[in-house]
């Protein structure tokens, strides 16, 4: 898949933003007044900034409201509802904390649940795609949720939670990579099933439909070199999980905490780049891509 910057930024930042809102919702940290205001501002900048960036890749952003209509079948539509609902509930909850110094716990818990639901719906947009075997797994929602919760805990200053959750996120990330590397082969979809010519003999893409490129090739056929990918995976896991955990284990300083946040964010952006760039869409088979992977 083409790693579109707007979608990478959207999933990374809004994931973190909703993660932070989750922790604020359950009262960790139990802040009020100006401190609460600062936390909520950061969370909303991340969450809303991410959502806005996701509209950049739309062909007709001015019609975006229509995307709220099909929640019965479409995960993208459900994501829209969940995001708006959590932002509204958390705004009311945050207003209580900031302006009247009172915490309305029920509202906070409902908001926190909605925030997790938003991250889950985002992940399901990808996980539902049978056409992209690497994503079509329960590990995709687990990957998104663990990163969101871990990064949120880090931003919320919940050191112990952050350490455990970032470790869990790292393990799940590695699991997703290992499973993902076999996913296309295991899916059973290959050039033989795509053309149904396999009964005659070995199929090879001989000539593409056009000499030039097209939408399908640009959007779906992006091949990352294996060595390149391995290096990026090491960078991603180091920055996203290992380094922040190490920094959190050191005696607390604001510099170390800030470095942990920056490192985590850079790691998540790298991991998300890989999430898209490494994903093999089965349509690539028609163009002779992934021939080395599919049996």
């Amino acid at each position, binding site marked *: 898949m083409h790693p579109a910057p707007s979608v990478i930024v959207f999933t990374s930042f809004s994931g973190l933003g909703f993660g932070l809102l989750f922790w604020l919702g359950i009262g960790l940290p139990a802040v009020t007044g100006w401190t609460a205001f600062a936390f909520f501002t950061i969370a909303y900048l991340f969450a809303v900034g991410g959502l806005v960036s996701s509209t950049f890749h739309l*062909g007709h952003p001015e019609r975006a409201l*229509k995307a709220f209509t099909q929640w019965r079948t479409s995960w993208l539509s459900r994501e829209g509802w969940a995001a708006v609902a959590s932002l509204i509930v958390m705004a009311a909850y945050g207003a209580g904390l900031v302006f009247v110094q009172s915490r309305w716990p029920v509202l906070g818990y409902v908001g926190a649940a909605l925030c997790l639901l938003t991250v889950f719906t985002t992940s399901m947009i990808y996980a539902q*795609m049978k056409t992209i075997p690497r994503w079509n797994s329960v590990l995709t929602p687990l990957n998104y949720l663990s990163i969101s919760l871990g990064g949120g805990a880090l931003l919320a200053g919940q050191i112990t939670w952050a350490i455990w959750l970032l470790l869990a996120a790292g393990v799940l990330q590695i699991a997703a990579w290992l499973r993902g590397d076999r996913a296309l082969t295991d899916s059973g979809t290959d050039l033989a*099933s795509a053309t149904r010519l396999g009964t005659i003999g070995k199929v090879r893409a001989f000539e593409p*439909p056009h000499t030039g490129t097209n939408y399908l090739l640009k959007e779906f056929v992006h091949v990352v070199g294996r060595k390149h990918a391995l290096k990026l995976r090491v960078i991603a896991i180091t920055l996203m999980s290992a380094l922040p955990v190490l920094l959190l284990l050191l005696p607390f300083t604001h510099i170390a905490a800030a470095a942990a946040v920056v490192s985590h964010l850079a790691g998540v952006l790298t991991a998300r780049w890989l999430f898209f760039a490494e994903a093999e869409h089965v349509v690539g088979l028609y163009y002779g891509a992934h021939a080395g992977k599919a049996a």
Partner: protein
Amino acid sequence: MTALPERTDRKLGLVIDLDTCVGCHACVISCKGWNTENYGAPLSDQDPYGGAPSGTFLNRVHSYEVQPPEGAAQLVHFPKSCLHCEDAPCVTVCPTGASYKRVEDGIVLVNESDCIGCGLCAWACPYGARELDAAEGVMKKCTLCVDRIYNENLPEVDRTPACVRTCPAGARHFGDLSDPASDVSRLVSERGGVDLMPEQGTKPVNKYLPPRPRDRLARDAAEPTTGEIDVLAPFLEPVAETPQGFIGWLDRALEKL
């Protein structure tokens, strides 16, 4: 609504004969010609006369080489457009309801004035049958020429999809695949028509007729009593193994030098 209908009254679709397709791309051109000026937004091209042209097409023809365990490789031309799947994943992912499957004939269409151009339906289609138009920002796909097949302003012979009407090899057939007595259904059962990527669970309506083995020349020539090709075989035998006449004289003369 992007919920799929429980069932459709008919299943209009195409049957594509991989045995007869000669890979001329006439269907690609007639499709683009008809659809760029009819249903919905035109099919734009980018840099059409420059060094890196690209554009929106609803039908593209691939070519594959198939190497059997023995004998010569076979070249198969492979037209591909929307297969109007019964369980169309492209429809259910659409957040706006722009994508839908019609109850009356099973055609999968995009209502372009509702489409936000999110591209998710193209992600969900395993066959690459949907392309986001770079100029219009809306999703384009095969309409099965919905504006031809019911069009009373056209002579009856033209009320088929443009690709079917134009194919010079007769490799494309249009009809109702829910009716077992229809020409297309009979073709599918007689020739063993297949679904592409059945494991994706999309239940395509369009079927593909597999090519028949082609490299039989050697065997048939060895058995001159079977197969049409052998009618000419005796005439194709070399007239003489040794050169005769002027060439024969030249041959002998050169030999003696």
